[in-house]
């Protein structure tokens, strides 16, 4: 009772800090004045969170390409013109929306699957076996993680750029750097650097160490008893791996995959650096391409519609797997 009276004398900020934070008020319900105060704070935060989102959603439903001179947060009109235009002709180049979607999807999916498949066995080895070079090899896998993607981009650019398929003057096809045309020139048919394959390779280079690390952190938390029981029953290491460890690690495999997928879906650094052909563009690149140099030339409603389209898959995945993603990230980093 004494605390109650002393609380009343303090200013509202102190009172806010003084509130019971345990989520347990031993059955007592929240006093109305406090409920209202907290609701006001919550709504203010909600408004600040929703403000930029509503701004872009409202723009996307506008039929005008210009930027509104006044702030509009609730759509005055619901027009799907912008969405239709973006789906019909997303860029100035003759590239269909489906092509862009396919590029984005194939790239994110391919890199995610390859990285995961290769990473899981490595993670298992690090988590379960004791062997001579374990420490050294673990450090080796860890080293690339310290390098931001931009840092690894220079050598990858240079090396992938040397792999080119050329047609020589005598109509023969050569693959550099294995062979070159006699005159040293030739018509460029394919440049690995300037292709989805090349970007995929570069993205895998950064995705793979992360996947190994994230999966190892999780495998460490799986109790060994099940595997030991399987060994007693006569299962060899490979059988244990496929029939016990993989099924148990499924949730974390999914989380690692989706974390990667979200990142690859929004990947911009490597794609924008490597790719130059409009038919190879991804959705994220197209979005950046639309912003252009000058704010006045940006087709704002189409940009907004594209932004919503790019954001939607990521948003859905993230919200659906929110708990697992946060859990997966923190187990990974604690162990890392």
């Amino acid at each position: 009772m004494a605390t109650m009276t002393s609380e009343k004398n303090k200013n509202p900020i102190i009172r806010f800090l003084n509130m019971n934070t345990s989520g347990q008020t031993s059955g007592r319900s929240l006093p109305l004045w406090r409920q209202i105060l907290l609701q006001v704070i919550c709504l203010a935060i909600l408004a600040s969170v929703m403000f930029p989102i509503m701004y872009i959603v409202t723009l996307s439903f506008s039929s005008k390409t210009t930027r509104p001179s006044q702030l509009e947060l609730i759509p005055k009109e619901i027009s799907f013109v912008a969405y239709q235009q973006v789906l019909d002709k997303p860029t100035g180049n003759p590239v269909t929306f489906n092509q862009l979607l396919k590029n984005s999807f194939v790239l994110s999916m391919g890199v995610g699957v390859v990285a995961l498949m290769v990473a899981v066995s490595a993670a298992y080895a690090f988590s379960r076996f004791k062997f001579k070079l374990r420490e050294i090899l673990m450090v080796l896998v860890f080293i690339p993680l310290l390098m931001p993607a931009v840092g690894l981009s220079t050598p990858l650019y240079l090396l992938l750029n040397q792999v080119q398929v050329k047609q020589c003057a005598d109509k023969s096809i050569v693959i550099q750097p294995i062979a070159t045309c006699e005159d040293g020139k030739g018509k460029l048919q394919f440049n690995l650097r300037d292709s989805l394959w090349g970007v995929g390779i570069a993205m895998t280079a950064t995705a793979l160490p992360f996947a190994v690390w994230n999966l190892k952190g999780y495998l460490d938390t799986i109790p060994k008893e099940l595997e030991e029981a399987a060994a007693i029953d006569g299962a060899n290491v490979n059988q244990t791996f496929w029939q016990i460890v993989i099924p148990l690690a499924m949730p974390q495999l999914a989380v690692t995959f989706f974390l990667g997928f979200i990142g690859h879906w929004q990947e911009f650094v490597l794609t924008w650096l490597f790719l130059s052909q409009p038919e190879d563009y991804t959705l994220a690149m197209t979005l950046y391409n639309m912003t252009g140099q000058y704010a006045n030339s940006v087709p704002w409603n189409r940009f907004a519609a594209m932004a919503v389209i790019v954001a939607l898959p990521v948003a859905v995945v993230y919200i659906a797997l929110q708990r697992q993603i946060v859990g997966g990230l923190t187990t990974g980093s604690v162990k890392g």
Partner: protein
Amino acid sequence: MAVAKSTQKARKKRQSNLPYLYLLPAFLIMGVITFYPLIYQVIISFTNFESKHLLLGLKSPELEFIGFKNYIDIFTAALPVENFNFFRVLEFNFWWALSNVFLHVPAGVLIATLLNTEGLWLKRIYRAAYILPVVVPPLVVATVWTNIFDERYGAMNQLLAMIGGFFGNPDPVYIRWFEDVKPPIPGFLPGAPLTLAYYAMMIANFWLGWPFMSVVATGALQSIPKDLYEAASIDGATGNQQFWNITVPLLRPAMIPAAVYGFTLSFNLFNFVFFMTGGGPARSTELLVTFAYNLVRNLRWYGVAAAFAVIIFIVALIVFLITNRITRATQNYQEAG
């Protein structure tokens, strides 16, 4: 008996090779696409590699090994690039990451605590909505916030004008958030003046950053045993005392790794900075990663870019060793507690 022993031995030998077999695919792939490029990068960093050497690579006849010149050029600001000073960029980069984390973590914890209040209406809706900033692609976030800070149409200037009008100043506000090079608070960060663009980015990144911290804090809050609070209130502890003596210490093991994660994320926050300011004005908001990107994509000085990447790697290594120490310390703390 002897036979059994020898087969056991053979089996053991096979066993000892097994881990390497499991590692083989990963190391084969990483050898080609990660380790070889990393070594190549170090070699390139000692050369004057430029666009004209692209075709032949290391075999091109004009390629020269120039020793540590690239590194010295970077450290002594001898690169023919305007407004570039490595140590200023480095200092700003550290300050940027630190100042972000110091804002995001307390805000995340406070808001998570707020949403953990028992009996609060609409809790689920708030929790779902507050995660939205995390799921919007950085390019979209950056573009929206660039618009908000627009000189003529931006919401921020309109808001400031409204507040000004409230205090009897009817003039419209035209603050040039991304162009003004004069630091509003001179001498705030000695050596790396913070322009208005920094503050604009801080506001925008705050919007982006606290929800993640809040999600982590919510998870940790819900795992705190409730009898601790009951026991404390029986002993006569006020809500305030409970917050500082129970909630904060028990949140620490979860929040420190999250803060470390947030730090590395902000430290290399390429997308956001690149889209919002491009490192400007006058490179005052340039991060190490945005400058590295500039070197490869626009300037095409591959040798210098490689040297710069090697430097970034060393900086990242130092950061990692420090942050690893911090997380280790909390792990011990967790075990002790």
